[in-house]
């Protein structure tokens, strides 16, 4: 093999001269982290809401949440992203659609990816939250209601505090998935981490260095999230349950 390694490539300036290639990687990392954290917040809020709806004693509401989950789980993420990015602006009322299409492309890409990833992950979060609520003994709900709590109060003070602590480990893996799935945003042109690696290959032809660096950055994200969540899991673990003391 006649590949010439050149790790110094990261320190050399980019063609525009404003930054180094390392600077590009860091910029990509920032987009990946911003996108993933933003999408995770949407997913947590929307997913918890849907997860609660799945368990309320109303056929209509739980059916609605079930339909949401099935739709977002059974269409590939890439297709969903393209629908958010290419299809949605066309289907909105003409004025709003035009306004979106005339905005800055980077903003369009970012918000399409943010909403897509948020709604996609919400379906998964919903299933975890539902499983958490259903894993609680039936008596908890009955006891809450018997004490005179309204249904929202029962969820707020009795069911959810327990359910969230129980589903924290599976939520951790969903959180990790958000970071990995954010790489799909590269397909609509958002210059996040994996797109940045391709750009580095195009500009420098040092493909192995670029890919190794980006792969290591993803591993680093993974390890950081895992350690942070493990610390959180230790703090919130429920005594008497599996993993508890």
């Amino acid at each position, binding site marked *: 093999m006649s590949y010439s390694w050149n790790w110094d490539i990261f320190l050399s300036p980019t063609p525009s001269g404003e930054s180094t290639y390392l600077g590009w990687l860091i910029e990509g990392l920032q987009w990946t982290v911003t996108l993933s954290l933003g999408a995770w917040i949407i997913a947590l809020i929307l997913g918890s809401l849907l997860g609660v709806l799945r368990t309320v004693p109303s056929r209509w509401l739980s059916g609605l949440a079930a339909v949401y989950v099935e739709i977002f789980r*059974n269409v590939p993420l890439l297709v969903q992203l393209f*629908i958010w990015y290419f299809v949605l602006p066309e289907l909105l009322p003409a004025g709003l659609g035009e306004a979106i299409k005339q905005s800055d492309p980077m903003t369009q890409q970012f918000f399409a990816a943010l909403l897509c990833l948020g709604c996609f992950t919400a379906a998964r979060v919903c299933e975890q939250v539902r499983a958490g609520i259903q894993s609680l003994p039936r008596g908890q709900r009955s006891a809450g209601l018997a004490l005179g709590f309204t249904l929202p109060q029962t969820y707020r003070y009795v069911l959810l505090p327990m359910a969230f602590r129980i589903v924290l480990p599976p939520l951790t893996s969903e959180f990790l998935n958000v*970071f990995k799935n954010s790489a799909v945003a590269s*397909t609509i042109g958002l210059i996040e981490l*994996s797109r940045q690696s391709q750009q580095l290959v195009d500009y420098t032809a040092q493909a192995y260095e670029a890919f190794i660096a980006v792969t290591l950055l993803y591993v680093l994200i993974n390890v950081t999230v895992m350690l942070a969540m493990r610390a959180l899991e230790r703090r919130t673990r429920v005594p008497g349950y599996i993993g508890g003391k």
Partner: protein
Amino acid sequence: MYEFDWTSIPGALPILADGMLVTLEITATAILVGIVWGTLLALARLSGSPPLVWLAAGYVNLFRAVPLVMVILWFYLIVPAMLTNWLGVGQGSDIRMISALVAFALFESAYYAEIIRAGVQSVPKGQVNAAYALGMTYPQAMRLVVLPQAFRNMVPLLLTQAIILFQDTSLVYVIGLADFFGSAYKVGDRDGRLVEMLLFAGAVYFVLCFGASLLVRQLQKRFAT
């Protein structure tokens, strides 16, 4: 308001069918290789021999830490170089396909390995002890006693993973391979009917995956004892 025009879809069906074949080919290869290689990885991880455990755990954790998009790009970089250097094969037209097949097979193995490891661990320890007491060797105990029971428990999870894999194959878009989604995108772009083609592709994926997941649920009910 947007005026829908679905007329370009009937004419595009042959192209889309070709794309679907590519999708299914990648899915099927990844499932087969993934289960075989994944079983070996899982057994290595449970073997108790430090170098084997370490290697298998490293493989599984590395693949699970990296986005599939990066894995596909990695193999599109490595596979052509290997083919030309080691096997002397020229830069053929199906190089994308070979790269995608290798990438998906090795990537999915990591996920299958974890499912299979959990499945093997779910078999009661007494089963292994009983097999040893009957004079079986380790490979015999695994092949004749543990794995058949483990796979029975794992069937729903393995199938669910296959559905996820089927959806994930759409990511070969990043190396420009025309699978079902890639074909739909190309046709939509060519005819200026991207909106309709994307919605159509989404609907097809939904019907197939939702149908398959209903079947898995049925199966799960029948397998549950």
